[in-house]
């Protein structure tokens, strides 16, 4: 998914200056034109984004269809209140006699908190590793040396391969008789051992997504003028100081945007573990992420699945919100600081 759906707010003139009536009129006409031009995309977004979101939320308050004991046929479940949410968040299930019990293992409800912790674990580890490695790659790509174009192309190859293909490649590498065990001279059951399966997913994800981080950080590196480093050198800064005092503050905006994108992406991770380990490992759910759980639940009941996807949406939204708040203030402060420095 890309960020191509961003709708920039129409810019308004900020400076007050006496203008002639003709220009003002033209401006108003322009503003109206802008609205006309934007309307189609807003309508489109409302249909393809607004409708599914609202529909999912409405469905999440409906009960899943149950059986009519007399006919053996399904009947509509009716209004559920917060029952579907309680099922996931509080692990409440109904037993045969209609009493509320704690969801037994093997019921998807019992896996919710496990899936949350697996998802956050993947997010934390992969983003940290990918940021560190990506920065290192970016520094390499930023240097001038013979064969730089080749290195840049080589680093970008994993990012160009579709995730499903990547997952299948690593599936073969991590099979019992696969390359990983042959090279390491081990006999690890990569897709069924609890921690091995998690690391398999982390390794594959790192391999695939580090180039993305490297690319975004490289973009940040390339706008740093050489003079800043020269000035730092003249002032007697060591290379360690140059990194912490010059490079890092200057690439911070690019870095934080890259990390935000990766965090949101990692929280939604589905395809890689779904294909590589089928969400298995350990007692069977060591790599089941929230998105995998949603898809599993769709087969058992749409309404409950809608509740789960709404919960997932809210979790990711909260994380994004916290992030953007911190990121936003950071971005502003850096710009202000830069402007002050420039004056």
């Amino acid at each position, binding site marked *: 998914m890309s*960020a191509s*759906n*961003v709708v920039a707010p129409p810019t308004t003139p900020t400076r007050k200056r006496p203008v002639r009536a003709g220009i003002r009129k033209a401006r108003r006409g322009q503003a109206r034109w802008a609205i006309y031009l934007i309307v189609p995309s807003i309508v489109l*977004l409302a249909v393809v*984004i*607004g409708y*599914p*979101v609202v*529909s*999912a939320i409405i*469905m999440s308050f*409906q*009960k899943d269809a*149950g*059986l009519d004991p007399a*006919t*053996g*046929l*399904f*009947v*509509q*479940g009716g209004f559920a209140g917060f029952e579907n949410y309680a099922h996931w968040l509080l692990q409440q*299930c*109904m*037993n*045969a006699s209609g009493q509320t019990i704690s969801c*037994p*293992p*093997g*019921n*998807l409800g019992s896996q919710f908190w496990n899936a949350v912790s697996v998802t956050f674990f993947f997010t934390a580890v992969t983003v940290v590793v990918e940021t560190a490695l990506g920065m290192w790659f970016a520094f390499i790509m930023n240097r001038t040396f013979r064969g730089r174009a080749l290195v840049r192309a080589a680093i970008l190859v994993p990012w160009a391969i579709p995730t499903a293909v990547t997952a299948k490649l690593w599936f073969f590498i991590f099979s*019992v008789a696969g390359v990983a065990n042959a090279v390491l001279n081990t*006999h690890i*059951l990569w*897709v*069924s051992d609890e921690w091995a399966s998690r690391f398999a997913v982390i390794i594959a994800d790192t391999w695939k997504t580090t180039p993305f981080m490297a690319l975004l950080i490289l973009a940040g590196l390339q706008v740093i003028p050489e003079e800043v480093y020269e000035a730092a050198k003249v002032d007697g800064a060591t290379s360690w100081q140059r990194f912490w005092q010059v490079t890092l503050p200057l690439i911070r905006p690019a870095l934080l945007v890259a990390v*935000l994108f990766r965090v*949101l992406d990692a929280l939604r991770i589905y395809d890689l573990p779904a294909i590589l380990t*089928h969400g*298995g490992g350990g*007692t*069977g759910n060591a790599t089941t992420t929230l*998105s995998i759980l949603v898809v*599993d639940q769709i087969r*058992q009941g*749409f309404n409950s699945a*809608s509740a789960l*996807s*709404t919960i*997932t*949406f809210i979790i*990711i*939204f909260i994380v*994004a919100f916290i*992030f*953007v708040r911190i*990121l*936003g*203030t950071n*971005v502003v402060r850096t710009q202000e600081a830069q402007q002050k420095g420039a004056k």
Partner: protein
Amino acid sequence: MKAARVSVIAGAAILGLALAGCTGGGSSGGSSGGAAGANLTDKGPITYVQGKDNSSVVRPLIDKWNAAHPNEKVTFKEQSDQADQQHDDLVQHFQAKDPNYDVVDVDVVWTGEFAAKGWLQPLTGSFKMDNSKLVASTVDSGTYNGTQYAAPQTSDGGMLYYRKDLVPTPPTTWDAMMKDCDIAKQAGIGCYAGQFAKYEGLTVNVAEAINTNGGTIVGKDGKTVTVDNAKAKAGLTRLVDAFKSGNIPAEAITYQEEQGRQAFEAGKLLFLRNWPYVYNLAKTDGSSMVKDTFGVAPLPGMTGPGASSLGGHNAAISVYSKHKATAFAFVQFLQSEETQKFFVTQGSLAPVLASLYDDASLNQQLPYLSTLKTSIENAVPRPVSPFYPAITKAVQDNAYAAVKGDKTVDQAVKDMAAAIQTASAG
């Protein structure tokens, strides 16, 4: 502040897309009203829906039908080759009450769900099928709540592949097979494997172990949970013990059909439980090291043949079809001896007509046919339940934990029963 606002909007847009991808179709369920009683005698063009026709049998059949029925032509709608996608495609069209999905090919494990949703025409009254010539277990796989909803079209059963150079006479019981494992040990290879990765194949293998021991997972009605009893426990215990003793090699926990086949063809296994498709591959694959040294036998049981899980597909008529009389005639055509023979000779698809298994010329062409007959005759369908996805999940999660030794058999079976119960309680 502008940058921050743009980021917020970007974030919201991305999240919106994420959620948009997560919502399924609309709400489902409800009875189909009068649809099951409409258009019963109407004839006209119909559509037949099936997953990818890998063995190229459907088109020639339809050509033949169309030549004989110019006014009731059948159009073939081919789905993808992924079972999950076929299932979801059918669900979407049924929800939309699509009259153009007249005859649909359903996997045996979907029958209960589709029947309970009221999407399948009950095969009663004028649509009653003649099941007298069919293998009985295949009819059970199309029957939900005492009513037949789907007509068996092709079948499938598990067989025991064994190395006849190491084991001249194949074991007929599980205990005898476990004794033969000493031979594997001496030869330095693994003894037995089936499908034990956590996916549908595990349910198939666990159901076989349980059914072979006389246990069941759910009762005939598809709802009553019966798995928490001594017989079912004894069945699951066999698999658990075999894993513990190493008679099933540890890596078999990662095996689906293909990994097991590769290990067997590489000469690394003495016994393998798999489907009939392996036979031709093991005979002809360039990499197969057991071309002339393997044989097939019925699955080992308690005293005689074990109870295989039943695979295969059933043909069903949509309640929304506008030409049900034609649809019914076409379903009968699919079950006719001529068609069934074409399926088995052309596509190696196991027939549902009992008589074909004794056909001498067919046995010559497919030497495993008599073994397959034993397998299918003793086969038990997986639970025909509207809650099958929840049942298979409950079986997989808990059986997987048990064979890995993370859970006792007692606890696994208890959790299995509780999880199946919560599913059907809604």
